[in-house]
């Protein structure tokens, strides 16, 4: 009843190809964006910013990056953590050595460096079919982790081996409160998510999906496999690099390579599996799920009135994630995003059952 498309006729192809062809969807998104930019800062507290909103947004960005490569183009990568590290350390070094550089440029630089490193590791193995990119990215992950902990130049010869950022400002405005950090991260993520959505809906997205679905058939319509895979890898690395820089600067403040280890890679991979492979919206859902679940699990014993050790909670987390991964792969490979879409389908018919 509420969600009907009655009366919404598309009279141009452009209208048919819009991001949100259904008016109610458009309203929904605008409302969410308004709430995000205006509503949230009015009511949120520090905990919400630092433990929920900022991590979800930044990891969603990384998830979008990985989704482009794995969900849309079908190439598995296990090096997300390593490329986030590249972004973080690139941003750190630029901000350190050229302190006058605009913050936005610093993040763009982070993305570009991640792209370069990504292409370096990816290029040889993109020529080979199958699942071998996973190996290259795994090699990248371990090598980069090692490099950032051993090559002292990256951390400016700090005796502790950690990188730390100080006061940050953008165009003269200091970014020092959680609210300001949140707004800046939000703005960056929204812009990049919009760009990603545009990419995947156009010829480039179709090219990627063609490679994923049947690379042989993709070749016969004129797609060059190396070009398609490389472009997906480059864009993906860029997003992941920016996310890494944001993570280091706005979530951690100071970090060691351990913050970007193989567990981080798996974490982002789980986000896109649970959230939905091949869905930008799903990347947000997956990030939210993965970030919120441990928080929820930590509150659970208190709510239920039983006591669990932190180790036990961690084990439960592992089991839950493992279970959900398998569950989603079997039941709904398109993850939460598809469940959301199905719910909307039901809503279109509501109150009728079919």
């Amino acid at each position: 009843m509420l969600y009907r498309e009655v009366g919404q006729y598309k009279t141009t192809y452009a209208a048919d190809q819009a991001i949100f062809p259904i008016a109610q969807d458009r309203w929904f998104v605008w409302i969410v964006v308004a709430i995000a930019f205006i509503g949230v800062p009015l009511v949120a507290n520090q905990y919400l910013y630092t433990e929920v909103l900022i991590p979800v947004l930044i990891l969603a960005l990384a998830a979008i990056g990985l989704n482009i490569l794995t969900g849309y183009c079908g190439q598995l990568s296990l090096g997300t953590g390593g490329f986030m590290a590249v972004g973080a350390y690139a941003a750190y070094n630029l901000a350190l050595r050229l302190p006058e550089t605009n913050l936005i440029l610093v993040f763009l630089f982070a993305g570009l460096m991640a792209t370069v490193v990504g292409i370096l590791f990816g290029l040889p193995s993109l020529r080979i079919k199958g699942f071998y990119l996973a190996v290259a990215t795994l090699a990248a992950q371990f090598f980069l982790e090692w490099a950032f902990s051993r090559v002292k130049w990256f951390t400016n010869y700090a005796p502790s081996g950690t990188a730390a950022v100080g006061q940050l400002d953008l165009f003269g405005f200091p970014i020092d409160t959680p609210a300001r950090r949140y707004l800046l991260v939000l703005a960056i993520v929204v812009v990049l998510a919009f760009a990603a959505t545009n990419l995947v809906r156009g010829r480039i997205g179709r090219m990627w999906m063609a490679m994923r679905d049947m690379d042989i058939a993709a070749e016969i319509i004129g797609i060059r496999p190396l070009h398609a895979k490389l472009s997906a890898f480059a864009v993906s690395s860029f997003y992941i690099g920016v996310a890494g820089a944001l993570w280091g600067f706005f979530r951690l403040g100071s970090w060691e390579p351990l913050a970007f280890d193989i567990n981080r890679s798996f974490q982002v991979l789980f986000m896109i599996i649970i959230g939905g492979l091949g869905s930008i919206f799903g990347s947000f859902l997956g990030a939210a799920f993965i970030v919120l679940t441990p928080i929820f699990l930590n509150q659970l014993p208190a709510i239920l009135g039983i006591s669990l050790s932190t180790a036990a909670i961690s084990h439960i987390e592992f089991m839950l994630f493992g279970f959900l991964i398998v569950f989603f792969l079997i039941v709904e490979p398109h993850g939460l995003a598809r469940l959301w879409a199905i719910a909307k389908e039901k809503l279109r018919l509501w109150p009728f059952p079919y």
Partner: protein
Amino acid sequence: MLGPVLETLIGGLLTGVLYSLVALGFVLIFKASGVFNFAQGVMVLFAALSLARLSEVMPFVLALALSALIMVALAYAIEFLVLRRLVNQEGIILFMATLGIAYFLDGFGQSVWGSDIYKIRLGLPQNPIFILESVFPGGLLIDPAELVAAVICAVMVAALAVFFQVTRVGRALRAVADDHQAAQSVGIPLNHIWLMVWAVSGIVALVAGMIWGAKLGVQFSLAQVALKALPVLILGGFTSIPGAIVGGLIIGAGEKLAEVLLAPVLVRWFDLAGGGIENWFAYVLALLFLLVRPQGLFGERIIERI
């Protein structure tokens, strides 16, 4: 100079044997179902944990038998709950499913058996042996546990190789690996085959876990060994049992030698904060191998017919 290098080489080779044991489990499953079972490492850990904890309360042999039973039950559960429902999905989906299984087993294993470090007592001679004392002063140090591992590994490999080549079941496994649906359509009971392969793989994991555990103590990091098996398989070929052995030896020896010979050089040249090349050497080696010989030393070239 030669003495220490040789010692490192032998030590590396023996570590390599242990890698091979784990890789064997991978090869079995991949050969029969085309699945890269990421959970293999956790299975090794789970098996070792079961063995360690059970042998605290019962005689070793009984614990071993019971652990074997547990691994078979685990295989059955995995086949029934997961694999059956993912028939003919692409490799990447199956791999991610095994990733989920790995995480689940990790949490489950530690919930059930606990997360401390446990010991497995195999009654192996603990004292190092020294060989070639006449050639090198002081002799070369060899760990007898690893020697035993090498022997066990050799026996397992021989048995498995025979099994695959000669028996009817082995042939059926090869058919299944080639094409699930085609194998089904000629009457090969897919589910039974997978069940058996995972069970055998579970037993292999148990043996690997037993030996690793005896050497290192059973702990969390055993699961990371799974990742190390990937380079082994790339070098050896995903479907080759002898390849797993050779690959394991090369990786094991290569890693140790790189750490001892290459790392000091790199530390000097680049002013690094320490070595630790072992962390990535295997993977980079695998990557280089991919460029030169993607099917590995013993793997099969894939010809695609359209």
